[in-house]
């Protein structure tokens, strides 16, 4: 399932570690696999594990530990709202509820058109800008008032 491009990228990650320590590249390798396939199926996790010469269950431990790995299919846009304490005190949960109402979906659900998946996340180190929403693990949106959220949703096609 891993494409030659993904394998080439994983090889570059492996090269960053001493010979025989290729397991150290597991986080990067899982991220690369997820990027190419949208989400991490068990088969994909096993393939990454075998490629890195590690037990599949060890790769599964990593994949299930971190929120940014998606173990189920997600929509084109994954919005992760931080609900840890500092954000919670500054409207994080409100932002999440607003999103749920606006999109008509619950947590960990995807809009019927497959456009947006809603997730809850842990502290992103941006507590000062709470509430925060992360788009597709990459783009950080700060101070997400309802108006800002509307603007963001309009922009995501």
């Amino acid at each position, binding site marked *: 399932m891993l494409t030659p491009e993904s394998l080439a990228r994983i090889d570059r990650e492996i090269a960053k570690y001493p010979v025989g320590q290729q397991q150290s590249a597991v986080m990067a390798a899982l991220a690369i696999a997820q990027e190419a396939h949208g989400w991490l199926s068990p088969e994909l996790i096993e393939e990454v594990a075998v490629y890195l010469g590690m037990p599949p269950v060890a790769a*599964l431990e990593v994949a299930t530990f971190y929120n940014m790995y998606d173990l189920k299919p997600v929509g084109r846009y994954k919005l992760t709202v931080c609900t840890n304490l500092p954000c919670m005190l500054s409207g994080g949960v409100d932002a999440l509820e607003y999103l749920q109402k606006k999109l008509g979906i619950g947590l960990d659900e995807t809009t019927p058109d497959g456009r947006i998946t809603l997730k809850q996340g842990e502290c992103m180190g941006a507590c000062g800008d709470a509430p925060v929403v992360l788009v597709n693990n990459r783009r950080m949106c700060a101070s997400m008032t309802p108006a800002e959220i509307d603007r963001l949703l309009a922009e995501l096609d």
Partner: protein
Amino acid sequence: MPEIEIDGQLVQAPEGATIMEVAEQLGVYIPHFCYHKKLSIAANCRMCLVQVEKAAKPVPACATPATNGMKVFTHSSLAVKAQQGVMEFLLINHPLDCPICDQGGECQLQDLAVGYGAGASHYQEEKRVVFHKDAGSLISMQEMSRCIHCTRCVRFGQEIAGVMEFGMANRTMHSEIVTFLGRSVDSELSGNMIDLCPVGALTSKPFRFAARSWELSRLPSISLHDSVGANLTVQARNHRVMRVLPRENEAVNECWISDRDRFSYEGLNSPERLTKPMIRVDGQLREVEWSVALDYAAHGLRDIVARHGADEIAALAAPWSTLEEMHLLQKVVRGLGSGNVDFRPRRYDYAPSGVPAGARWLGMRIAELNELDTALVVGSFVRKDIPLFAQRLRQAAKHNGTRVTLISLGNDDPLMAMHEHVVVAPSELPAALARVVKAAALQCRVPVPAGLEAIVPDIPSEAIATSLRVRGRSMIFLGRVAVQHPHAVQIHVLAQHLSDITGANLGFFGDSGNIVGGYLSGALPSARNARTMFTDPRRAYVMLGIEPELDCHNPQLTLAALRQADLRIVLSPFISEAMREYADVLLPVAPFTETSGTFVNAEGRVQSFKGVVRPLGEARPAWKVLRVLGNLLNLDGFDQESSEEVRDAVLPPETLIDGEFASGLDNGIKLPIDPAALVSAKGVFERVADVPIYFSDPLVRRAPALQKTRDAAPPTARMSARTLAEAGLVAGAPVRLRQESIAGSGEAVLTAALDDGVPDGCVRVSAAHPATAALGDMFGTIQVEPV
């Protein structure tokens, strides 16, 4: 050495030791869950918190090194408060279901909750639920809510078993122990995780709800399944063995046992147990009194001797018989005047007469395996043949940097770092070893032994020779395949040369439980051995403890010989279909839990044990049966009162080294190299037979839970892609296998399977299974054709 104080006692702490280790030495108990002396430190349960003077907070004793001047308090109010707090946290999500928990009565959590917990919890909210899992037929994971996430099971897999089958998925309060996609746990050491689990999360499936630990008697015993001689605690109730656990002996099995040692007890209660003596009357087996059966046997033997001569009698003991049983069996046979007795049914090639067959042994103590610098293992499916030796070599490779090399017939993963792993066809095994011998001779600049002129060393053999030569402690081990090989003697001769050249010592893993005991018992043949007694059929056979149709090198040959005989006396704890067909006298003898006796393990350790329960039905200890038989035959020297008396006659206590090791063990051999043994087979398919771990003896074959594991899957005909193509086969299709021997041709129809670990030109077909019992030699030529 740092000096520290624990609860007011001053001690010298070994360099680098943790507070936990020092306290253990001192006999101060610090409560703990995740800490285990054989596993790496995880420090995740926090149960071991202690107070250390000048430290701001309590520290985990298991992960804190003892430093000079340290003052530790394990019972101060701070320590006690910390321990109570941790206990309360650990129990927050615990179901507190001790009354219905199998671990009850032997649960670390239960004990520590009583000893270190508070009476009540602040936590009143809902508890989390963790779903049960299915991990196969041995480990029950029905109540995973009990798990306290100590990760002992995970670390055991990674560090001891060499394969990480359990992992901890998810995070925080969602953490749970899982296998990948719910796969079964297949390690041959998996049962140890049941012992390690400090709570009732991982429990024994066969033992589940069978008994409470306090109802069970616990008596020491010794495992018969391999030459480790693992020390066991056998637990019984109402004269029924309910469970087997390891008994710690650092020098032998440490605190581990293999799953075969642990779960084979189920076979003791098999419906196939023979509980009444039987004799054949008018073609039918009839149950009779002991006296009748023994008279019949004695009369029959005397009759054969009188009419045809004693040489017509042959006896074969299972190599898992006790020392006493083998000794008395050979005494009966020799008393009658025959030298046809042996205890090595799986062997093919025996030292020619005149060459002393010394008592072959490990060549060192088992514990020394961990200290080797180099180990060359020749001809062994090491993990499945002898799991605890593999475990020790794995630790050696990991912690001691031991260079382990395997020359074997399949690329089965030994789950350890390998220096070299050479996979060859059976007929190439002697040549592969010869290449190492020649490489070593050339490297050491000593004369190349005669007979190796045509041998050309290759790169791996050069590397192996170098590894044996470099300074340090080196061993050459001959495994099961090496001793059961058609050129076993030549392999031994080559290994001897390699030892002479490199200075590495020579050792034998031993292909069965009491093989060393067999050598010492006197049961070595003075006439026909375990093969020639069948190639040259006799009129009377006495079989002790084996199922010849499965346990002999060539079952076809054995069965043909048995069928033509006039008298077949079988002493066995079990009755098989084949026995019903051929046996004339069936004498129910006690398995190891129902008799006293002695096993001598690979290192020569003499381990005697007592019966744990009384014999089932009318079964009797075989040593007593043989003693009575000896008397009925009017033979001298059958008046022993106890099995100890028999043992002391065979191994006088004063001859034992340190009071526990047999003396006079000898691996030396002096024979010329025979170049004919170094020629590999051409243009034929060769059979590679492993003895699957759960088919290796009659007891384990009858243990239901083990029979449901992956290792007990019915045999297939495994071949490389190339061999499949050559034979015109596809994987998954039925294949007809045929082997010829002097007893005729034998056939089996199996499924062809693709396995690129099998050398080209070879077909891997397991032995010891009914599906393949009609075939012939374990490593002979085999014909393969599509059905």
